[in-house]
């Protein structure tokens, strides 16, 4: 096994090479773990919703808890108008959460530690929210860039600033998830390398750090999925209820 801490993020091809024109769409380890986490979500929620007993078993409890958690999050941040988008936000939250959590199992691949994956998710949300905003408010959605009560002299500058801060949304959304996942996993690998190189004499200290880091990383994995979903709700809220 390689001791290079970045080796774990390597994407390699599984199975035959598939090419469409000059585009390489071969099945990689990244796609494998995306498929695995999607299937895991399907299994958990199918088992959880199969029997509707009044006193739930563990699976049902898990499904119901996550349902109420996301439903509450949406109603708290985006209001009742966002109810139709529950399915979308729920799938985003569950996908990010399962990808993060599968990455915590040793020898697995963390899909969300690649910026292209998180950026695709974030730009999908960004474009979708912008389209929803234009459908709901028409050209009035552009009022988002013109805050009320600003002197006319300052208006050109303010509009430019508002546009930049609007465009920075998908980048801040994707970079946050990617940076947290990659930094955490690299750190764990580095401390793991210390355990090996210090041997049986001095290896106990980094080993205890490693244990603590694993706990922290599980917290971060959950928290980043939560932040990703709650920011989607906030952006949706901006698009549905224009405040400015």
């Amino acid at each position, binding site marked *: 096994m390689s001791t290079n801490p970045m080796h774990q993020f390597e994407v390699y091809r599984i199975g035959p090479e598939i090419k469409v024109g000059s585009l390489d769409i071969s099945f990689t380890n990244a796609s494998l773990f995306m498929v695995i986490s999607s299937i895991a979500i399907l299994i958990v929620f199918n088992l959880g919703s199969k029997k509707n007993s*009044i006193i739930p078993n563990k699976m049902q409890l898990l499904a119901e808890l996550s349902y109420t958690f996301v439903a509450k999050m949406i109603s708290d941040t985006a209001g009742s108008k966002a109810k139709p988008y529950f399915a979308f936000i729920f799938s985003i939250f569950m996908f990010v959460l399962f990808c993060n959590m599968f990455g915590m199992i040793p020898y697995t691949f963390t899909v969300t530690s690649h910026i292209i994956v998180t950026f695709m998710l974030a730009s999908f949300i960004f474009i979708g929210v912008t389209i929803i905003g234009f459908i709901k408010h028409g050209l009035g959605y552009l009022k988002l860039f013109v805050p009320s009560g600003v002197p006319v002299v300052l208006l050109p*500058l303010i509009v*430019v*600033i*508002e546009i*930049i*801060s609007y*465009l*920075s*949304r998908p*980048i*801040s959304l994707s*970079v*946050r998830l990617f*940076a*947290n996942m990659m930094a955490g996993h690299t750190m764990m690998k580095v401390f793991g390398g210390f355990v090996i190189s210090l041997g049986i004499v001095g290896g106990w200290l980094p080993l205890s750090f490693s244990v603590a880091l694993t706990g922290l990383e599980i917290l971060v994995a959950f*928290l*980043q999925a*939560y*932040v990703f979903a*709650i*920011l989607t709700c*906030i952006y949706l809220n901006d698009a549905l209820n224009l405040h400015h």
Partner: protein
Amino acid sequence: MPKETFKTRLEIAKNKISKKNLPNNRKASSSIGTAFKMSTELVSAVAVGTIIGFILDKTFGTKPWLILIFFFVGVIAGIMNVIKSAKNMQK
């Protein structure tokens, strides 16, 4: 008969949950979220401003000027982002 008792028991349990200071609990977890949120918001606005300046410079051929201007506009946008989300947090 058992259904009735279940209902009353459910009511009692619900009351118990609402009596516990749940809002306090939720506030703590979501403020970690906002802390994560703010740090990247500042940086990403600067990055977007610089990228826009770079692209505009390339198209108009005004090499150093637009990238400088848009860098500082990006900084302002980032600070305004942080102020905005801090205001949201106080609500």
